[in-house]
């Protein structure tokens, strides 16, 4: 099955069509005044052409060149991590960076398979303290606060 390359080809064809469609109403006064729409249309056309070439190459190739096992344990960890990032974004928006980090670090360690509580606490406190001291206090970078805190 060569599904991944085929999916990418189709997706990029749609992106190319989208680029041409959303710039169709821009001014074009010939090559001497190409306007803001010419370049995106050109890129969109090239993208469609290249996607077509990729599709043909994929269909005539003997083997699948891209091998991804989305059911593997590793990929399941990645999906879980993406969910955690979603939660992190929510917490960042409402509670600020420090609270979001205190959630993220143990969650990441747990995803990687370590559930030793003392170790998790030490690593979480260590990294959080390092971030706060170095970036907030020493470098004065400033960490984002949330809507609530």
């Amino acid at each position, binding site marked *: 099955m060569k599904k991944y390359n085929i999916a990418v080809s189709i997706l990029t064809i749609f992106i190319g069509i989208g680029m041409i469609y959303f710039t169709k109403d821009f001014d074009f006064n010939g090559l001497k005044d190409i306007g803001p729409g010419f370049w995106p249309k050109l890129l*969109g056309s090239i993208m469609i052409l290249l996607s077509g070439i990729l599709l043909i190459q994929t269909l005539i190739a003997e083997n699948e060149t891209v091998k991804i096992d989305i059911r593997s344990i590793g990929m399941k960890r990645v999906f879980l991590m993406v969910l955690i990032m979603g939660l992190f974004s929510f917490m960042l928006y409402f509670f600020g960076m420090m609270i979001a980090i205190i959630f993220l670090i143990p969650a990441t360690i747990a995803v990687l398979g370590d559930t030793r509580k003392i170790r998790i606490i030490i690593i979480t406190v260590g990294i959080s303290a390092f*971030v706060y001291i170095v970036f907030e206090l020493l470098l004065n970078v400033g960490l984002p606060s949330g809507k609530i805190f």
Partner: protein
Amino acid sequence: MDNFISAVSMVFVPLNIFVAFMGALVGILAGAMPGLSSIMALTIMMPFTFAFGGYTGIFMLLGIYVGAIYGGSVTAILINTPGTANSAATCLDGYPMANKLHQPGRALAISTTSSTIGGLFGATVLFFTAPLLAKVALKFGSPEYFALGIFGLSIVTGISSTTVTKGLLGAVFGLALATIGIDTISGKPRFTADSIYLLGGISFIPLLIGLYAFAQGLANIEEGTKNVVSKEKVKLERIFPDRKDVKQVLPTIFGSSAIGTMIGAIPGTGGDIACWLAYMQAKRFSRHPEKFGTGYPQGVAAPEAANNAMSGGALIPLLTLGIPGDAGSAVMLGALMMQGIIPGPLLFKEQTGAVYTIIFGLIFANICMAILGFSGIRLFSKITNVPNMILTPVIFVFCFVGTYAMNHDVNDIFFMIIAGIVGFILIKLDFSMPPIILGLILGNMVEKNLQKSLVISNGNLSIFFTRPISSVLLIISVVSLFLPLVMNYYQSRKSRNI
């Protein structure tokens, strides 16, 4: 002369000395850890360098840049796992010297020496050639800049990707990303989806951090604890190289440094190509090619000299033309522009002091790298024991903090996360990042110069082919695009005939 003296004196400011050393240390540690890379270290640390005023932040970045390239050799030699792609070729002789010949100290000493000499060689070439190239670049007009942008993209797509088609798609994708935002000539918004955040265009640094660092964090999550290496008890018998080794490898170091500098000067290429090319050439011209792969000193010296010399070479097109030589110098481009230093031929005329400061900063960064390399070898050898479950959360946290530090905009963090997820998917689909990044960087330059050229020529496309520099660059672009395809075709025909 005043600019020269001022630049040298900047190097000896205590704060600049301190940050250069700190940058080199961070770079070496980042380069030594297999889960990190030089680009990750640069992209994550870049926002923090703005906390320092003036050139101090630039000194730190140069230290990280140079240190990370060298740092990859530590793990390449000790555990046969290159810390960065720049040190992949070092494994071939570095690991056998450390493991089979039981001489890890000798291997690290040769590596440090070669990296130092290579780095200084590249910086010296930069010092002498950049002003000359800048004079040529002053003759560049809009057609030449357009052709140069196309040339840069054509080289990187041919070299960086598993297939040319995916490389080109990546480059076009990067060019397309550069169109997002308000068009500077007409003032019309393009692909902004009525979002205020996108009106200003795609934020370069969050995208870079997402594609390189965050995506790598997700890759570490996928690997899990697979890449944890059992604690290696490495006993280093020596730190400095002996005279016999230095005499033996010196010609190789200089030859490889020349290769590295030239590769670095070609836009879009980097240390990963330089190290392999130098290794192959050293083997080809060696009196004992059969000894390569067995722990031969030249096999360690060649890639390490080349990859550090590349750092100076990559700054040549960056400073003279405003086009980055590799992904690391692409980050430098962003940093320089944020500091009000605009790379290009006019930089040499209007900000000569800045040019010399950067060049001497690079020379000093290599010296810092050497001092830390020789004195800290024993510490760096322990870095291989950092487990993934500490490394990965640290990567993520640094990504968030580094992204926020740029503009203090939480939306940048959300954008960076999305870019990181997209970057991970692209990596799994065999797309490489350099064409995308270069497309984004060069997109505006290519479009604006295309527009200007067509206005000048009244819509006549022959302007690109009647000017000699522009036509030569476009011809080379076409050749570099189609040459890999033609070579692949002939090679497959040859293997079928056999």
